[in-house]
């Protein structure tokens, strides 16, 4: 990295780190929400941007992590121990359940990961003796906005750095080779299954870490908050809106879409779902490369298959 880049990153980091000290309660939780969605959007795109697999289960992984943590805290366990356990458990769940899904490709993979998210939602309702059903779980840990902020900021930084490093590494090159053609990648001697597992594991670490931190400041979870349909599609929408396959795209997308969501849901407009729906339609129909793609100079990875208008049946 160039020294200017490191210095400016350090200045931004210092500024961001001191803001919450002066912010009010609502502003603090809003900043945390932004960080959370940046993490989820980046996680989604570490998988999708590199390997091409559209995975809609990252929110579910995050959701299970929040639930594991809340349940452990309710059980009277130590905060740090609960955090570590919840993170490891949800990571194991993500990889263990997610690995067989790689037996499918393309749209089938997307739909099966959507199925996993929907199952998670209904399980969180059904297992009411541990999850509290629709009432959810409240945990009282006192005012934890600041620790949660520093935690989320660290995870966000880690996600950005990881995304950047993968982009520059041999592993990233292997991922992108696989994205262009899985058969060709195998012919080149790449173990595509192990590559897929690697990308799934790396991208699932950050939602697993973010879960407990979310509970820390929100002190409440229920199925709708963490597993709701709006949330399942949020990371994908943000990453694709901002520009998939870049480091900046998911971050920009997460910030803009979160701002719009917050504005819509605090004003209580009667047509807020219509506006959200319209955004989704516009992104899907008109912005295949996202915002970052609109300015081609910023685009670093290009799709070699972009010119192919016909897909195989």
């Amino acid at each position, binding site marked *: 990295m160039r020294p200017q880049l490191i210095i400016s990153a350090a200045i931004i980091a210092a500024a961001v780190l001191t803001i919450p000290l002066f912010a009010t309660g609502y502003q603090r939780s809003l900043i945390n929400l932004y960080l959370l969605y940046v993490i989820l959007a980046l996680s989604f795109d570490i998988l*999708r941007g590199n390997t*091409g697999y*559209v995975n809609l289960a990252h929110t579910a992984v995050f959701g299970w992590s929040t639930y594991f943590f809340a349940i452990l805290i309710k059980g009277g366990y130590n905060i740090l121990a609960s955090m570590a356990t919840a993170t490891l458990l949800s990571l194991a769940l993500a990889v263990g*359940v997610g690995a*067989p*899904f790689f*037996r*499918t*490709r*393309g*749209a*089938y993979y*997307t*739909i*099966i990961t*959507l*199925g*996993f998210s*929907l*199952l998670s939602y*209904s*399980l969180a*309702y*059904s297992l*009411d003796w541990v999850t509290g*059903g629709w009432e959810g779980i409240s945990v009282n840990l006192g005012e934890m906005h600041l620790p949660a902020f520093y935690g989320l900021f660290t995870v966000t930084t880690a996600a950005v750095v990881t995304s950047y490093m993968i982009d520059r590494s041999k592993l990233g090159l292997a991922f992108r080779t696989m*994205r262009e053609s*899985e058969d060709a990648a195998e012919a080149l001697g790449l173990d595509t299954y192990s590559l897929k597992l690697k990308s799934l594991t790396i991208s699932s670490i950050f939602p697993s870490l973010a879960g407990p931190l979310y509970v820390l400041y929100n002190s409440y979870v229920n199925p709708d908050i963490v597993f709701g*349909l709006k949330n399942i*599609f949020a990371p*994908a*929408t943000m990453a*694709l809106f901002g520009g998939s396959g870049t480091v900046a795209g998911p971050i920009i997308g997460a910030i803009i879409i979160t701002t719009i969501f917050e504005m819509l849901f605090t004003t209580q407009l*009667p*047509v*807020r*779902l*219509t506006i*959200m*729906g*319209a*955004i*989704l*339609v516009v*992104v*899907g*129909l008109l912005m*295949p490369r996202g915002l970052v793609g609109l300015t081609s100079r910023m685009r670093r990875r290009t*799709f070699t*298959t*972009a*010119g*192919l*208008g016909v*897909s*195989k*049946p």
Partner: protein
Amino acid sequence: MLSPIAIVELTLAGLLLGGIYSLLSIGLTITFGVARILNLAHGEFMMVSALAVYLFFQFTGGTVNPFTSLAILTPILFVSGYLFERFLIRPLRRKPVEVLEWAPLLVTLGVALIIEDLAFIIVPREFGVPYSLPPTKILGLTLSTTRLTSLLLVTAVALGLTLFLRKTYTGKAIRASIQDREAALTMGINVNRISAITFGLGVSLAAAAGVFLIMIRGLDAYVGLPITAKAVAIVILGGMGSIMGSLLGAIILGISEVYVSFYSPAWSFTVAWAILILILLLRPQGLFGKRAERI
């Protein structure tokens, strides 16, 4: 333990629910099969149809048999489905492969949210159609005539659909396009036209499901996405694009839902999803699906 009467009643209720789900999910599976695009707005058409039945029932003061609305609604929704394909799905089909994997999900989800929002503005509460015919007595059992009629009509629609898909040119062309879109094209089938017709058909099947569902339970404007989720589960379970698979999957889901919710309503959906994930771990291509391949 369940009494024999309860078993008969629950099984009939399960068959009816399964039949309704099968109309819905066959509609979804044929549209997916032809276009290779999962329409997340599918359940919205069902909700719109149920809403129309409700409004029709209110408007006529509850005097007209709601089953008659089937005759008006299915053609109207056929046209909506046709236009939906023409102006939304077809432009999406032209996108490059890597966009085709996610853009249709976002676009159809967006359309679903818009339809739900507008429907909620029209009827911002739960709505139902309290219509029932005098009960029927068979072999000492007292059964709901409305439910029996629904069950008969659902079976008739399913049989009619099967005949249509097996015997007519259009039906055969639909099945050919599901099997292999490009091969169908080289055989001289106008795949674009067939695709639009399939969406019309799929959406009118959802509309029929809506007419039957509103007769047995109250719905609200936000029922579309959860019901689409169920249809997606059934479609994956049966094997994507497989009509037989959807039929079987829907019956399994309908009966298990009715029996499970007899004991604990909270578990009905979860059991269905758990069955789904288990089957998928054993057979990733679903019950009747072909080997999964890249779209």
